[in-house]
């Protein structure tokens, strides 16, 4: 067992779906004690989201939830019950960090707002994440990441110029905000250790997402240009795109930025005559005749598997990469080398892939210790061991539906 970076860090995770849980997962994967709090009346949305194992629509059968909840303890706690709130407060007294993704104002209404938490634990660090932040005229508008992507503007930059806008797959902003949250949260821990002061962090997934629009925004500000939808073309490379290969819906990307790469491509294609073809000699020529060029390249790629194209071109120093699908993610040799997925034995799902962090730390690596919890899997253990509840007290609260 490696040494745990966050051995001494205790986190209460009231959040759900992707952003909050993924932030907490970074801490739990590096050894923090993280309690993921849910309730059967308000389970984590991902537990009611497909895909389910064997198609069984049960809270513990969803295969989506485990992706963001490895190495965490699961607790069921009914926050509609006054005694549930009391227990939440006892947990806050034990913790360093509280994460929530309720609509702004809900935690306060429950008596668990930042000011309330500070009374219990003066140096508490609270991270609240919502679509559009804790304040502002649109703060209360409901929504999901899949739609927030539009507000951030990504579909206006995704698609072909002569087609409808499409959107980046899924809840794209959910893939951006968590890592900003993690960096800030660890900063907050260090700040607390140095000064004794806790803090409240307000992570707007909108504002975090917009960071990835920065160059387009500056282009608008400085040049009055809307970047728009450009398919796969690049202003400074050709050929540049995804080319159809042998097989069903198989593609390989190729990106040629300079003459050396162009010559490499021609040699691998076995068409060295193209190097001196006046239509394609310079980048300027290649951009001018890009449509024709793309066709020539695809005529070649169609005869080979995408992985063959990638290997041949990379061997010649030409940037190329398979367009991997959701099956390839398990088979890609490089992702395997990185141990992209930890296989852990989940009590309902069986051996199940849990993503590992993409950053490898040489001395204190993240480790698979526990699969994602079933809803409330550790409720009794948390109450008795952490909160030192007696059997009687636990049973009584259980009967009062406090752990529902």
């Amino acid at each position: 067992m490696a040494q745990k970076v966050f051995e001494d860090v205790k986190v209460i995770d009231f959040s759900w779906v992707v952003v909050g849980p993924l932030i907490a997962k970074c801490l739990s994967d590096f050894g923090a004690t993280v309690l993921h709090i849910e309730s059967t009346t308000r389970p984590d949305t991902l537990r009611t989201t497909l895909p389910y194992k064997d198609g069984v629509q049960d809270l513990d059968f969803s295969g989506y939830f485990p992706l963001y909840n490895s190495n965490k303890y699961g607790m069921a706690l009914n926050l509609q019950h006054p005694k549930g709130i009391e227990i939440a407060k006892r947990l806050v007294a034990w913790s360093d960090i509280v994460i929530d993704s309720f609509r702004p104002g809900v935690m306060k209404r429950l008596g668990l707002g930042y000011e309330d938490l500070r009374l219990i634990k003066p140096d508490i660090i609270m991270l609240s994440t919502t679509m559009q932040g804790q304040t502002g005229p649109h703060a209360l508008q409901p929504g999901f990441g899949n739609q927030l992507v539009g507000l951030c503007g990504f579909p206006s930059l995704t698609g072909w110029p002569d087609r409808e806008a499409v959107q980046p797959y899924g809840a794209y902003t959910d893939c951006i905000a968590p890592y900003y949250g993690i960096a800030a949260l660890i900063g907050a821990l260090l700040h607390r250790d140095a000064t004794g002061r806790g803090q409240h962090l307000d992570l707007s997934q909108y504002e975090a997402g917009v960071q990835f629009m920065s160059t387009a925004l500056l282009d608008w500000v400085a040049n009055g240009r809307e970047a728009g939808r450009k398919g796969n073309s690049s202003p400074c490379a050709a050929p540049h795109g995804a080319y159809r290969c042998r097989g069903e819906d198989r593609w390989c990307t190729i990106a040629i930025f300079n003459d050396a790469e162009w010559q490499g491509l021609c040699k691998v294609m076995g068409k060295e005559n193209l190097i001196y073809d006046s239509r394609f000699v310079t980048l300027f020529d290649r951009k001018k005749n890009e449509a024709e060029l793309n066709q020539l390249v695809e005529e070649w790629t169609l005869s080979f598997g995408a992985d063959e194209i990638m290997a041949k071109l990379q061997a010649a120093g030409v940037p190329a990469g398979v367009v991997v699908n959701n099956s390839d993610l398990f088979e890609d040799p490089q992702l395997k080398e990185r141990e992209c997925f930890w296989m852990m034995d989940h009590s309902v799902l069986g051996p199940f892939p849990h993503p590992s962090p993409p950053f490898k730390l040489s001395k204190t690596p993240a480790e698979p210790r526990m699969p994602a919890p079933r809803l409330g899997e550790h409720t009794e253990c948390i109450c008795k061991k952490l909160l030192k509840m007696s059997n009687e007290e636990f049973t009584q609260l259980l009967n009062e539906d406090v752990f529902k």
Partner: protein
Amino acid sequence: MLKGYRVLDLTDEKGFLCGRVLGDLGADVIKVERPGGDLSRNNGPFYHDEAEPEKSLYWFAFNANKRGITLDIASEDGKTIFKKLLKDSDFIIESFPPGYMERLGLGYEELSRMNPKIILVSITPFGQTGPYKDYKASDIVLMATGGFMFLTGDKDLPPLRISIPQAYLFGGLQAAAGAMVAFYWQKKTGEGQHVDLSTQQAITVTALNTPVFWFLSQTIIHRVGPFRVGGRAHLEQRNTWPCKDGYVTTILTGGELGAPVNRRLVEWMDSEGMANDLLKNLGWEKLDMANITQELNTALEEPIGQFFKAHTKKELHEGAIGRQIWLFPVQSCEELMECPQLLARDFWGNVKHSGLQASIPYPGPFIKSSEFNCGIRRCAPFPGEHNIEIYEKEMGMNREELLMLKQAGVI
């Protein structure tokens, strides 16, 4: 939050964002460029479309909150200076090909011998080890190999990237998270370490739940343009909808969660005579998106799509906010900059560029902290902007030494 801690940032565009995030958190980030300025300054777009190294907007965006020096770390004199800087530093961030730092005698082992608390963050396309470690990459290659592109784009056309580069932002950002994990350990134990970030792996997060569809049911998830799959593997639900002057995003959601929202949308449509009987009479609570047929889904979406086409983005957005409906406009850059929510939160920060004699509005802090402002404090440096400040004033070198190193091409 990181005030007083120093970062030496050797990256090109593959790693800019890592140092930017540490700088936003208050660290003293020094961008170390090769003499004459880094090649990554050639990344467009450019200020006023003037393609000069001091005017790269890509450079501006992700090198703000950094100071800048020029230094040739491959030369012997350059190495000596670098090692002096190393003594007072906590992080080195680099994005060279694997093995390059070792060949310079600046690999993690050597660096840690000189400064045991140093954290070396290496950002590469594929990682420090493995069969692809020396492979060439670019934005599109990484968005493809990380699993993003297969899922994005129209059914009948090739898989798509986003039209502005995103891959290196995922790499740099997640490297910053990894650097912070290592830094927490360093503050606790005094021990530094090597952080190895694979950009390809960083991008796999964008495949979201799709690996599970393969794992549990050997189902390949294909791209479906403006629709969304994943509610059920083969159910296509519209997510991006054309409206009168552009697009909006929204989705039909079933069950207890979606029912009140759907009802409010139907009431709104009905008030304008645009809801049909199917929409008005549906038992929305019983609508189960896990088992809905494609036919019913399409039949429900049809009149909704007509309603959107009769309205502008602004009308739909404002109506949705008032009615608590999850619908958003697909905003252009211009609209983003006028968005009332961002304005109310004082998001845009005007950043002074004295070199351009201009102030430019930038996206504001990535998070709001009650203790610290993570917004931009200084614009990105021009080549060698802080040579005198750092070499002379902070390291105590004298002007003669600087002149000599300048003429030798070291700084």
